[in-house]
């Protein structure tokens, strides 16, 4: 046993020493008497092993003459090249490789590439679709309303619904007492939190519950008739744009089947609630404070006394806030019918059934991919009319991008795109870069948190990372579609062709003040890491300004020209 161990130790010696002396050392071991002597020899062999490998590099290899003396005629491998590096060279190489190793580690740590640990936020951009759904609700265009609330509640929900927020844990808290409409008894402002709406055609009722939207419809044709004309009957996207303009002009979504009478105390309670919500949630704290001050000054001056009914008061407060902020998405909303504080059905995650419905709808509409073509000159053309949830449509969109993989240039047509999910923005942008790229950040004022959105790791085999990209925009291009355009523009990755976009870079949600008043406060803003700002209010300026209808033609010409240059 000890002898075997001793032999092993001898075998571990450098070949030069082993071939020359191992037999003799083993011979000495065999002549040793007693276990203590054998143990001493073992210790001696260990010391010798260490010494030969650390202090005797010049004896590591033996010359050919010694190698020929391999015992028993057993074939053995040996190197005829007697070269071996100097000890100094070995140490120098060791130091150099160590330094290089740490330099690379340092570079990885402090480079911008942190994708492995970056979670793409679930936040989605605001969706213009939801505005169309407002009008859809007004028209009763939803086929089968699943929640038959009153028409005014429908309008409230609709108006709140187009505020989107990070999808995580946003619930709607609404009063359940729908009969207590006159009491205004809810003194404590409750946040009416509405999660975002999924992307769906305005003519559909499919919604995921986590992104729940109103499954509502005016109960009667009479109720529809009573809706403000501002709500419009927009059924297509151009009219949706019109609606935005109307909002900008200061109109308030309201379903005024009933008109509530307001006294000073009730007004004061609403104003206090609005002030609190503005200061807590509005994206710009400075502007929020100014608006809050203005509301209080107007109240003190008695400017609000003229508004004795809820709708007029809501309009007045909206106007007072917008006079300061010029934020057309900031809005006080009045509902004659009390809004429930906490409807249980709305605070739950989407059911499997609803997810399945959404999935089915996405399959039916091919995930809103309207056109997928290879145009002459091998220019890929992709027209898609929303950014659907990547967890549902990722595969389908990936297949679409794969089919364009051999194109020499790509045109993304976002002229009719009302936005959607940030994760789809990241997924499509992934094909345009050869490395994970930081697209933007989502800053949530209420939670004072920032989430980053990055492209995913490069897709194997992708050939589009260095191909010219053109993005077609229009006045209707909205929210996430604007984000996609803006990000690519900031990264100088695409040429934008068309019209200036809508200008929606903030996302918000409704905060319930009491049974009848809800304030919509833009509380989440997109921040581009390059510009440190976003396109809120201004829209995204195209690089080449042409009318929307001319955009494709112009982009094709530009692409062809660029390809010829290459």
């Amino acid at each position: 046993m000890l002898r075997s161990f001793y032999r092993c130790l001898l075998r571990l010696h450098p070949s030069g020493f082993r071939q020359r002396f191992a037999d003799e050392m083993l011979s000495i071991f065999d002549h040793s008497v007693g276990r203590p002597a054998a143990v001493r020899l073992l210790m001696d062999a260990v010391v010798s092993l260490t010494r030969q490998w650390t202090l005797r590099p010049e004896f590591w290899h033996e010359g050919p003459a010694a190698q020929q003396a391999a015992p028993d005629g057993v074939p053995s491998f040996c190197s005829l090249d007697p070269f071996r590096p100097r000890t100094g060279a070995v140490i120098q190489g060791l130091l150099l490789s160590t330094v290089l190793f740490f330099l690379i580690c340092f570079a990885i740590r402090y480079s911008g590439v942190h994708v492995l640990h970056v979670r793409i936020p679930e936040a989605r951009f605001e969706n213009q679709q939801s505005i169309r759904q407002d009008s859809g609700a007004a028209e009763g265009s939803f086929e089968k309303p699943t929640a038959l609330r009153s028409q005014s509640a429908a309008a409230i929900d609709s108006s709140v619904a187009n505020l989107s927020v990070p999808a995580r844990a946003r619930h709607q808290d609404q009063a359940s007492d729908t009969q207590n409409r006159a009491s205004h008894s809810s003194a404590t402002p409750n946040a009416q939190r509405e999660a975002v709406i999924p992307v769906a055609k305005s003519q559909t009722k499919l919604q995921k519950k986590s992104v729940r939207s109103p499954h509502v419809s005016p109960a009667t044709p009479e109720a529809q008739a009573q809706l403000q004309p501002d709500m419009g009957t927009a059924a297509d996207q151009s009219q949706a744009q019109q609606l935005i303009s109307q909002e900008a002009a200061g109109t308030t979504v309201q379903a005024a089947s009933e008109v509530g009478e307001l006294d000073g105390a009730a007004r004061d309670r609403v104003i206090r609630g609005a002030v609190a919500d503005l200061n807590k949630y509005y994206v710009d704290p400075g502007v929020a404070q100014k608006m809050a001050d203005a509301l209080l000054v107007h109240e003190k001056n008695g400017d609000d006394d003229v508004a004795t009914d809820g709708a007029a008061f809501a309009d007045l407060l909206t106007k007072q806030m917008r006079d300061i902020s010029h934020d057309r998405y900031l809005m006080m909303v009045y509902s004659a019918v009390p809004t429930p504080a906490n409807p249980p059905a709305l605070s739950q995650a989407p059911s499997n059934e609803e997810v399945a419905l959404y999935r089915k709808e996405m399959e039916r509409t091919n995930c809103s991919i309207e056109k997928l073509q290879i145009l002459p000159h091998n220019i890929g053309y992709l027209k898609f009319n929303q950014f659907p949830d990547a967890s549902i449509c990722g595969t389908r969109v990936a297949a679409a991008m794969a089919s364009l993989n051999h194109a020499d240039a790509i045109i993304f047509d976002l002229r009719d795109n009302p936005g959607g999910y940030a994760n789809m923005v990241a997924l499509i942008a992934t094909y345009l870069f050869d490395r994970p790229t930081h697209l933007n950040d989502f800053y949530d004022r209420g939670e004072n948190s920032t989430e980053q959105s990055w492209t995913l790791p490069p897709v194997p085999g992708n050939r589009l990372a260095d191909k010219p990209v053109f993005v077609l925009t229009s006045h209707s291009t909205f929210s996430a579609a604007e984000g996609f355009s803006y990000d690519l523009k900031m990264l100088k990755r695409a040429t934008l062709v068309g019209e200036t976009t809508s200008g929606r870079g903030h996302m918000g949600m409704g905060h319930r003040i009491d049974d009848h008043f809800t304030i919509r406060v833009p509380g989440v803003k997109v921040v581009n890491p390059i510009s440190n700002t976003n396109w809120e209010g201004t829209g995204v300026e195209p690089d080449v300004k042409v009318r929307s209808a001319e955009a494709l033609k112009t982009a094709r010409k530009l692409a062809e020209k660029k390809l010829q240059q290459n």
Partner: protein
Amino acid sequence: MKDHADNFLPLSPATLHILLSLAAEDLHGYGIMQEVARQSEGKYKLGPGTLYDNLQKLIQRKLVQELGRRPGDDDPRRRYYRLTSLGRGVLAAETNRLGDVIREARLRLQIAKPRRA
């Protein structure tokens, strides 16, 4: 020759004992170990690792010559080693150096003895 031998001085105890043990006759490794133990009256025990490490160096410096195996030996694995003339010169030089050291040491030790008045 002497100047050349001086280049190897001073010798380590192991080297000195190995050269000394080979001064009288050719020996194999085990024989060297036994001879060293005898010379030092068992006070200095040379392990095979140290022995062959030193032999390796001595052979390279040509102070010792490897003779190879001897037929008829008890153990055919043993190889014999012989002191070269250079090795002998080095041993003589080291012996002289040590003689000087010893003489000097004795002188110093006598001076250091307390004198009786």
